[in-house]
């Protein structure tokens, strides 16, 4: 079964079982997102992909495409809300883009550029978060974790392990490691695992690779995240 949905006046075909974001991506329509990644179980937590479906706000990454939906993706109101939620992620953790080795390749930063985010707007939480440099090849900087759950899903769904988990409640959420010591070095993660490479921010980094591509020549230094995401994710859908 298939059908048509309408996004911002454009008719877009979908196939049974597709979510709104999957149908949109296949048709070349970008919906900003952070916790969504094609091929992974949808999570729906970052809410950056919020669209308005028949008058109701929904997460495009989890909400199924259904015949006859009228969807607003680009509106001043949604853009403003998405910018504010991205700013929330910036003030919740400790993000210092100029000194972060992920800068230019960071999806959080890429989405912020796309949404024309010029400041953090909200007061900072100055959360006291730690680093885990115990593993010989992989570094975790908890300051940059946005709880998108991608590493958790990657480890479980792609790597067949359970290296990561999200613990805590409310603003006290934290990423935890499945090992006796709680440190990454004692987990069964491998540097070639999907979970080691999936992080959209600079929270999980591969050691000794940070500056192989110089700043200024990185992905989002030259391309808007909408172009990059559409190109990569449509490729995945094929």
């Amino acid at each position, binding site marked *: 079964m298939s059908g048509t949905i309408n996004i911002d006046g454009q008719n877009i075909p979908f196939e049974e079982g597709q979510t709104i974001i999957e149908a949109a991506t296949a048709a070349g329509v970008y919906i900003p997102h952070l916790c969504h990644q094609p091929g992974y179980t949808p999570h729906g937590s970052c809410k950056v992909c919020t669209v308005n479906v028949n008058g109701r706000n929904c997460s495009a990454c989890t909400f199924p495409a259904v015949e006859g939906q009228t969807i607003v993706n680009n509106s001043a109101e949604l853009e403003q809300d998405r910018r504010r939620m991205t700013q929330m992620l910036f003030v919740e953790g400790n993000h210092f883009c100029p000194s972060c080795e992920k800068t230019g390749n960071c999806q959080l930063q890429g989405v912020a550029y796309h949404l024309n985010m010029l400041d953090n707007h909200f007061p900072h*939480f100055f959360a006291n978060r730690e680093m885990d440099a115990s593993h010989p090849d992989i570094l975790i900087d908890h300051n940059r974790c946005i709880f998108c759950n991608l590493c958790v899903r990657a480890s479980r769904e792609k790597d067949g392990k359970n290296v990561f988990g999200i613990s805590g409640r*409310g603003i006290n959420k*934290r990423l935890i490691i499945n090992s006796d010591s709680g440190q990454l070095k004692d987990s069964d993660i491998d540097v070639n695992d999907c979970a080691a490479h999936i992080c959209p921010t600079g929270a999980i980094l591969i050691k000794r690779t940070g500056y192989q591509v110089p700043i200024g020549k990185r992905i989002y230094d030259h391309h808007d995240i909408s172009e990059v995401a559409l190109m990569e994710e449509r490729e995945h859908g094929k």
Partner: protein
Amino acid sequence: MMKTFIQKVLTDADYQPARLLTILRALQAEYQHIPIDAIDILADALNIPRTQIIAVVEFYSFLHLTPQGRYDILISDSITDRMQGKENLLGYLSSALKVKAGQVRDDGLVSLNNTSCTGMCDQGPAGLVNGHALTKLDRPRIDEIAALVEQQKPLGEWPPHLFAVDDNIYKAGLLLNGPIENGAAIQATYTRGINNTLEELDRAGLRGRGGAGFKTAMKWRFCAEEPSEQHFVVCNADEGEPGTFKDRVLLNSHAEQVFEGMTIAAAIIGANQGFLYLRGEYLHIFDKLQAILQQRRNAGLLGANILGQGLDFDIEIRLGAGAYICGEESALIESMEGKPGIPRNRPPYPVTSGYLNQPTVVNNVETFLAVAKIAIEGGDWFASFGTEKSAGSKILSICGDCSRPGIYEYPFGVSIEQILADCGASNVLGIQVGGPSGTFISNQEFNRQLAFEDLATGGSFIIFNNSRNILEIVQNFTHFFAHESCGFCTPCRVGTALLKKQLDKIIEGHGSAGDVVELESLCQLVKSNSHCGLGQTAANPILSTLQRYPDVYEKQLKSISYEPGFDLDGSLEIARRMAHRDDAAAHLSQVED
């Protein structure tokens, strides 16, 4: 030693990972925390990742990774407890026991903390000691408690008056007035026929009593029509909305009828297993409910071939462990599966994919109570009460400033004025209808009526008189939501914490004109983008009072264009302490006067 204990707990739980919360509650009670070694043993025995166990322990307020006192005392921090002098009593208890709130005493004997509303608002200030409800706290009782703790007297030997919980039913209506005979509703269901009974529920116009008001018959029909081997019935007794306590009373005095309603649901949807998810705060009625279930089994009203009708159905009680969010049905199901109570993405809805991804009906305690009565009396009888859109009655938990706080049952459509007169409220400033997630109405709105089409409520009805400070009320509610946010989605996780900061800034006198505008726009953001009902309603206390009492907020503001978000001079405190200085030059004024 520990290994033996854990083996026993695991055996009792039949090694089911879904019973993780039950297992962890037992460990917490035994060791005052969940020892790290126990986590490894459990992970192995249940074949679940260690991270899941840690995530569960850190999610629920009553579970801990670090040891609490052998007497763990929690004081209810609902607005009604505060109105009854809770803050003062907490201070008194703290000095009597020589332990600060949020801390464990050095000798490990006692720990003290705040907790969200324990559902004793009509007999507060209230608290919990090792999970058991304490009511009507005052200085003499606190002296008594402190002495018992110091003597290390086992809880079983504490005088029963400390734990006495009253029903306080002041007004019984169509449900509370005529309790049914045991088994009569099940018998009536089979006599009439299962399909005809569902028709009667439809004709009754019964809508869910938890607050959202979905049509019960429609929900059950959807679930019944789902092709699946297994269906489940769940009774949501995670009554966490501050100011609500009617389900506690219903389960204390009408549990038979609630279980009977669940059994009818099982017959209709084709379920063999039901669950009562009881909030951890109601531990005091757990044993009593277990005994009632056993009596029903003995009487052939539960178990195999109920009343000879070929229905096999049993009910298991699952206790929560301190998380308001588990009142949300999909979070409750997650919790029942031994996970943190994080609301699921929908669709699919629980009627299609609920507990263990099987079709599941989740209803409130009061809904099942009503179902049993409707099965006997018929749909027309029920629909003859209430209004056109809100059939039947609503059982209210009334508390706050009135002379007779307790349980009141009214036909829907009753005016607020009538309720206030009955419970003895005077000089009223306003009412929080439906708890913090509901609406604050002012004393200009008492002609409004209680009904889904006007003021909907899950049961909470908190009255404030003119001596109360609106901002203190709103602050208590806003802090509550920040504390209870599950943290899954960005707008609620960060947004409720920001709402707390922004509101505190204004209340503490550091706000200027732009801050109220910012507060309101943050409210809208959290409301319209959050994942579930918690986030979508967390801003209601601010929004509904901003609309009605803008002057109350404005009075807090400074008449300058910009005021920093933090206390400039306060931030220098540590520096002053380190430098041993307190002279004038070591202080900064907040703004140039």
